């Protein structure tokens, strides 16, 4: 497959510059061009500071690029995308709301359906990530992994067309992370939103994504676009899947020379 058949998302010549505190102009992204198909799972890999998060915010319409356009569903993005779901590195749950009402926050802020309907949808999702019966608890009564699951449910409960994930599992321990990767793949296969997934974990990227986009340099540019031709569901099983391992090697081979230049250390993945 070369290039997506029917792009839902087009990133055209996107460039981003910041003014630092000292007034210096710093470029974060340079000339990013990508086409992403409906329901595609795309992972963005790169070392810290290459502008991955910035790109995610631009795509979601939360930040405007200095130059270039993002086209989503045929329209130029000028503000937050309507059917957007976001998962951050931290769970970002509202501490005054219960687990259930943190999930229904999404649907109630968007006025989607009756309260009972919102509740039913949220409970269904919580059930699916193993949090049945946790609805009345408060976020701080949950472990970090559980909190991030709630955050995932909140991002999916309104069936978004576009799901943005900014290093969502990088603060979790390895076992919890694997479990969440499996949960995510399962839920993605069910709903099939288009996913943009930022990570610095190569293993995670090849396990989850249909395509891995490698960003590198300052300002960040796309240095590789690797399609992961492995069937679903993969179950986040890098260890026992030589095909995934081969893709991981390929991604690393692109990433490593870049790393050598900036002197950063790539953590072992998988």
């Amino acid at each position, binding site marked *: 497959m070369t290039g997506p058949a029917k792009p839902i998302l087009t990133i055209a010549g996107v460039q981003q510059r910041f003014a630092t505190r000292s007034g210096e102009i710093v470029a974060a992204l340079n000339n990013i061009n990508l086409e992403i198909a409906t329901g595609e799972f795309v992972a963005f890999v790169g070392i810290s500071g290459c502008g991955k998060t910035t790109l995610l*915010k631009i795509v*979601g319409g*939360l930040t405007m690029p200095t130059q270039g356009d993002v086209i989503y569903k045929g329209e130029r993005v000028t503000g*937050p*995308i*309507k059917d*957007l*779901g*976001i998962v*951050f*590195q*931290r*769970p*970002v749950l*509202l*501490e*005054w709301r219960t687990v259930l009402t943190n999930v229904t*926050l*999404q649907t109630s*802020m*968007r006025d989607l359906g009756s309260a009972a309907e919102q509740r039913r949808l949220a409970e269904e999702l919580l059930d699916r990530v193993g949090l049945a019966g946790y609805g009345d608890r*408060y976020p*701080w*009564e*949950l*472990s*970090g*992994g*559980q*909190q991030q699951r709630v955050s995932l449910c909140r991002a999916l409960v309104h069936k978004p067309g576009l799901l943005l994930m900014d290093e969502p599992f*990088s*603060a*979790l*321990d390895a076992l919890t992370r694997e479990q969440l990767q499996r949960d995510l793949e399962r839920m993605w296969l069910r709903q099939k939103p288009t996913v943009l997934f930022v990570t610095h974990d190569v293993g995670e990227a090849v396990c989850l994504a249909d395509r891995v986009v490698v960003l590198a340099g300052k300002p960040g540019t796309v240095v590789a676009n690797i399609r992961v031709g492995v069937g679903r569901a993969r179950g986040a099983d890098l260890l026992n899947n030589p095909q995934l391992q081969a893709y991981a090697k390929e991604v690393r081979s692109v990433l490593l020379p870049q790393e050598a230049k900036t002197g950063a250390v790539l953590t072992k993945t998988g």
Partner: protein
Amino acid sequence: MPASTALRVVAFIVVFGLVWEVATVLLRPPDYLLPPLHSVLAYCFAQWQVMLKHAGVTAHETLLGFGAAIAGGIAVAFVLNRFPRVATILWPSVLFAQITPKVAIAPLLLLWLGFGIESKVLIAFLISFFPILINAHAGFQSVDEETAELARSMGVRGLRYFIRFQFPHALPRIFSGARIAINFALVGAVVGEFVGSDQGLGNLIILAARLLNSPLMFSTIIALMGMGALFYFSVGMFERWMIPWHVSYRRTLQAGKIGLQDA
């Protein structure tokens, strides 16, 4: 307030009372300087209806001033947070109001508003307004970037963002301000009564000083302390009811259950 705290407060009061009583009995200071506790309590007991009437006046002034400070402080903080352009004009006047010594202008306020409760309410308000404002404003400003982005991703803006995100987020800080403000308000009301009034506990203190009536003086001080404690703990109980989710009320949980990992 947990039972153990209540017990310690009671224990402190008992010990304090004992020391007072024993010291006055043993050392026999002149009554007008320090009367023995039992005569103060006897006075309180005999005059409780009078005390209660005056306490009611002071409480009324305090609560009106405090209520106005809560409403006004939150409203001004909202405007300062929401309209940065207005804030640049409003901040200097807010700061000006704060650096003006309220106690020093109390006689002036009495001159303007008369000897009724209005002047006391105004002083109570002015003196308790600032802690509410500062805390509410800091609370509104301190919503983290990601939460704000989350709200925007859901299309939440304007007043809805304030009600659903900013205000609940700021509540713990607003209550911190309120705990300080409630006793400030009481001080304000009493100062107002000192300067000129015909009723209230502040009025009784001035009266007691003129008459060298030390049992009345001490009875009034005890009444004021009791009122201050009642107000303070009422705010605390209201806080506990309003924000049971806040970190300061999570003690009952085992630490092991909290597994948030910051990175």
